[in-house]
């Protein structure tokens, strides 16, 4: 039942003053939501790739090399926490934001969810979401620069 849709890439300039393009991977099976969110982000200069399940997210992470990944926690097939775990094995410095339709997910810090940069509940306030995206990208850059310094 899991249709294999090719990843969609949105990239249309709106804020020409944006100097550095941030690449964002959005994975959510709620297609209307993810496509609309992608369009809004692309209008602000983000380069967005959308996919609709966890397996596609893992594949798209390799091809799109995002600065930040945003995953729905309850996706069909490979759920968000397992997708997060696989992404962290492949790209330890990649910041991952989890989206969920439920409140509070991990209280004891032992599940893969604890490795997420942030866990946000839908519906999102777009401004807050963008602020978290930017903070996640900064943290990702710092982590990879720290890794390079250490080598």
């Amino acid at each position, binding site marked *: *039942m899991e249709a294999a849709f090719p990843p969609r890439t949105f990239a249309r300039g709106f804020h020409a003053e944006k100097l550095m393009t941030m690449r964002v991977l959005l994975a959510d099976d709620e297609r*209307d*939501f993810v496509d609309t969110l992608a369009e809004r982000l692309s209008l602000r200069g983000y380069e967005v790739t959308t996919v609709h399940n966890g397996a596609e997210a893992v594949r798209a992470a390799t091809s799109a090399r995002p600065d930040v990944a945003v995953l729905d926690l309850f996706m069909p097939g490979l759920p968000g926490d397992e997708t997060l775990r696989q992404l962290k094995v492949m790209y330890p410095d990649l910041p991952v934001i989890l989206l969920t339709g439920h409140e509070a997910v991990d209280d004891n810090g032992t599940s893969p969810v604890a490795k997420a940069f942030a866990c946000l509940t839908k*519906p999102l306030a*777009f401004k807050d979401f963008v602020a978290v995206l930017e903070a996640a990208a900064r943290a990702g850059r710092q982590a990879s620069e720290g890794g390079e310094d250490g080598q």
Partner: protein
Amino acid sequence: MDNDSQCMARLLASAVHDLRNVLAVIRESAGLAQDLTALAMRQEQAAPDPQRLAGVLGEAQQSVIRGAALADAMDYVAQAARAEDNAPGPCDMTRVCRFFCLLAARQARAVQMRLESGEAAEPVWANVPPLALFGLLLDVLDLCASVGGQVTLRFTAQRHHREEGIVVDVPDGSNRELVLAALAGNPRLESLRPGWKAALMPWREAEPRFFLSFSSVADA
């Protein structure tokens, strides 16, 4: 927690998740409409592209309709729970099937299943407690999920040989054969309450399908 409460908790959690998604689509669609208007003003256009704007607003409207349907289903569950505290009346199995498919859609999607309620020509009234019937349908869904899901599962209320029940069939899906075998294996239905009996019986016509009967032991 008793079976009815467990069933209600699972269905409501699934529905709330979908309702949050509905709200998220409405919020982002409204935001996108604002973005398009702001963009048009910035580019000194009189208005954003009307076709694009109509599409965005159409998505919001569709989501409102979806949200209203979910609210109806949640309301039905609440009313059913309240009615059972007093005296259970007859329930329309067609509505139960329709509302179950809405409420459990998210749970089904998690195992790559799709739920459909078949169209019945008229209401199928039965003197059964609706919450227990929801529980039985959840048992059937769990049974299909336990062997891997990945099918479409259809529930149609029907009167068969003067007995009201629900026809269960699996019209398509990559895992159809395994799911049909699980349904044919005389499964135990866990959600039964004392004084009631249920059975999922193979019913062979043009294709394999099953009849879920549910009645009071006293009626036997």
